[in-house]
């Protein structure tokens, strides 16, 4: 009933609740963890094959692409912005990687791609911050424009990578995990550390939490937001490169709707739309639960038509669990 429950009182908590609270903190305050746990337990009982090392590596492998975008988006979202153009940037990335490889070689191609995608991020950031515009509409529009530009630059037909160096790299395996999975995990950890332990990270939380306060405190808001936009652009580029590593080709049609899945992962991961709260761990857990759900249903031979419904319901159930545990929020969003 009372919305006005201010966080002034650490609510009297019984032993068990406090225990739950501790577990909670450990999981980075994200609804994704309970969901992930539930799904894993459920499917583990449903299919013996589910927890096999192979299947786990498959799940990880399928998490990487969208997961990469989601990680890149997390700092940006925490600082109170959103980038819906990452899918388009990734698609552009695949085309670039393939197109420039003949001239600058594989490594050069990656460098060029990452540079360009970062630039796209910076452009988004400049438009949003300098012109003080709503990031949702701006990045939707920029995404549309980029998508068109990619088609015009590289044509509709899929470009095959001239040699297989990317694919070879993609299929490289270290301790049972494919190279892209390892890169993904490393970058996730790096991002999480960045958010927790660097000045940029702390300022990112501050900006999302109370922009004016950050300004008053003399934080260079514009710069930090710009960095976060660049960061999400960079990761979109990485996603593009990894796509090429698994597809051996580039096309404007790749990474379609990835931004949507990435956003789902970010918010399900516990990052607040308004900014100021969120963790990479949560994002990763959320991205994982999306793949686990899909993979598990495939293993159970459930008609894929039910996947969307299951996904939607589990999203909402996760939120409700979250609410039951953490009680009514002081601010809704």
């Amino acid at each position: 009933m009372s919305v006005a429950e201010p966080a002034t009182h650490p609510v009297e908590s019984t032993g068990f609740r406090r225990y739950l609270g501790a577990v909670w903190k450990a999981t980075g305050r994200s609804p994704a963890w309970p969901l992930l746990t539930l799904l894993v337990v459920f499917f583990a009982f449903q299919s013996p094959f589910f927890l096999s090392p192979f299947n786990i590596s498959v799940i990880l492998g399928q998490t990487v692409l969208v997961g990469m975008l989601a990680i890149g988006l997390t700092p940006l979202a925490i600082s109170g912005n959103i980038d819906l153009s990452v899918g388009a940037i990734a698609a552009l990335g695949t085309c670039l990687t393939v197109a420039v490889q003949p001239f600058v070689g594989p490594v050069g191609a990656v460098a060029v791609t990452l540079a360009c995608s970062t630039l796209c991020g910076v452009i988004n950031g400049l438009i949003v911050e300098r012109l003080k515009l709503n990031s949702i509409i701006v990045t939707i529009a920029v995404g549309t424009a980029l998508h068109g530009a990619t088609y015009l630059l590289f044509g509709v037909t899929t470009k095959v990578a001239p040699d297989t160096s990317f694919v070879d790299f993609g299929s490289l395996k270290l301790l049972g995990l494919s190279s892209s999975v390892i890169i993904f995990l490393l970058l996730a950890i790096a991002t999480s550390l960045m958010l927790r332990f660097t000045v940029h990270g702390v300022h990112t939380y501050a900006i999302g939490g109370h922009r004016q306060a950050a300004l008053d405190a003399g934080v260079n808001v514009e710069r930090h937001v710009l960095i976060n936009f660049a960061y999400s652009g960079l990761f979109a580029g990485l996603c593009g490169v990894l796509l090429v590593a698994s597809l051996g080709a580039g096309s404007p049609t790749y990474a379609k709707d990835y931004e949507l899945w990435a956003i789902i992962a970010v918010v399900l991961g516990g990052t607040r739309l308004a900014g100021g709260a969120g963790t990479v761990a949560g994002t990763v857990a959320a991205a994982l639960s999306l793949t686990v759900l899909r993979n598990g249903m495939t293993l159970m031979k459930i008609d894929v038509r039910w996947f969307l419904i299951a996904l939607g319901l589990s999203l909402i159930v996760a939120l409700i669990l979250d609410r039951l545990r953490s009680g009514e929020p002081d601010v809704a969003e």
Partner: protein
Amino acid sequence: MAADANIGDGTAPPPILSVRGMTKSFPGVKALQQVDFDVRPGEVHALCGENGAGKSTLMRILAGDYRADDGEIIFNGAPATYRNAREARREGILLIHQEISLVPEMTVAANIFLGNLPKRRFGLVRHRDMVQKARATLETAGSEFSRIDPRSKVSELSFAHQQMVEIARATAFKSSVVIFDEPTASLTLSETNALFATIARLKAQGVAIIYISHKMSEVFALSDRVTVLRDGSMRGTLKTAETNEQEVTRLMIGRDIAVAARVEARERGSELLRVEALESPGFVKDVSFAVHSGEVLGLYGLIGAGRTETAEVVFGVRRRTGGRIFWQGREVNIRSARDAVDLGMGLVPEDRKGKGLILGLTGINNLTMVLMRRSGLMRLPDRKRDMNVYEEFKTKLDIRAASADTLVNTLSGGNQQKIALAKWLAVNPSLLILDEPTRGIDVGAKAEIHALIARLAESGMSIILISSEMPEILALSTRVLTFSEGRIVGEFGTGEATEERLLSTVVGRRAAA
């Protein structure tokens, strides 16, 4: 208190920061016109003026928040080069804002050092150092401050404690000019003294201090010089030692203020509200009291006493875990502010920014917000009636706003408070709960509001007055309850209540606890 007033007289070092012909206007308002102002190292320069006089604006210009339309800032003898708050800060000019400006979801420590976090190579933050430094800062700031845990989230702190964190920032940085914009608005005696000690320390270090307050006692206790603004233009700068409250007040509002209103004792009317054994998780424990029609029940207490919470529970906006509420003898179950309003209660909350006003809306919209409930949701709002209501209170409370349709967040702090008050007076409830009603209101307006409260009481309205200002409580209450740690620790009828007695109950209690 503040034994070290009037230091730094006599030998006057050159001003470290000064402005000439400062002019600034906002849509519809000339906030500043041709203002000259300066402050010297090691001096406390007080700035006085009515609500909307332009004090905060001037300070925000000094701190780089706003750009002046005209006029120059001279810092360290040269025209100032900083272009925004960040650069000003780097130059050593620090503004402690009137409205709390902290990041709720971050720790006290992080908030204190936000803007220049202690870091090592690769831009890594020294979290442990930060917490230690923060604790040190708070401890040097005084015992009251040191009760705040640097690792706790700001959102978990009381309004008052948040204000104190804001203040603690002043000592955390190496600054040459520190500006306090109404720092004591939500502080009670003890914290105020802690603040004064802090200011004295800064002053001793040769820091130049600009101090904005509506409390004359503070101005005269602290400052070496006083500058008075009125409607955005200078009314003069005086040596504090050579002037007195009357003179300053006259400069501020152009007349002497009405003699402080008093609510005279009279036999109470019938019982209106009675609460029994009220409980709310955290800070309201077994609270029972009754309010009779036409009486002003004062609630006095130290920070975290739980008065605000008690009020919120009664008003139905905070969870009630125990106790019963009776309205005109009948037991009622108040589940939301709507229930309370329908019974005829009103609450002017302590936290005007968060709970009292909708900053993004216009003054008239805010003022008629509760009136709206009287007519149905699908009813067309009656602009003409609203306008009349607005005009009525604009004159009654002397609200200074460019127009009825100016956004509230562009109003000066005091004028915001007046709107928050008017919004409830407009529905003329039979019980009005006022939580720190004169916070941030200038002396003139304060006198008017006191008079108004008195009038309302005369007219038979019951009032619960929560205030941390002893004089206010003593002058206006027909009965006083003292709170401590969420409990009622004392009751005083008219005449019985004196400063010493009230304090002894609350302080004695705290010492015991």
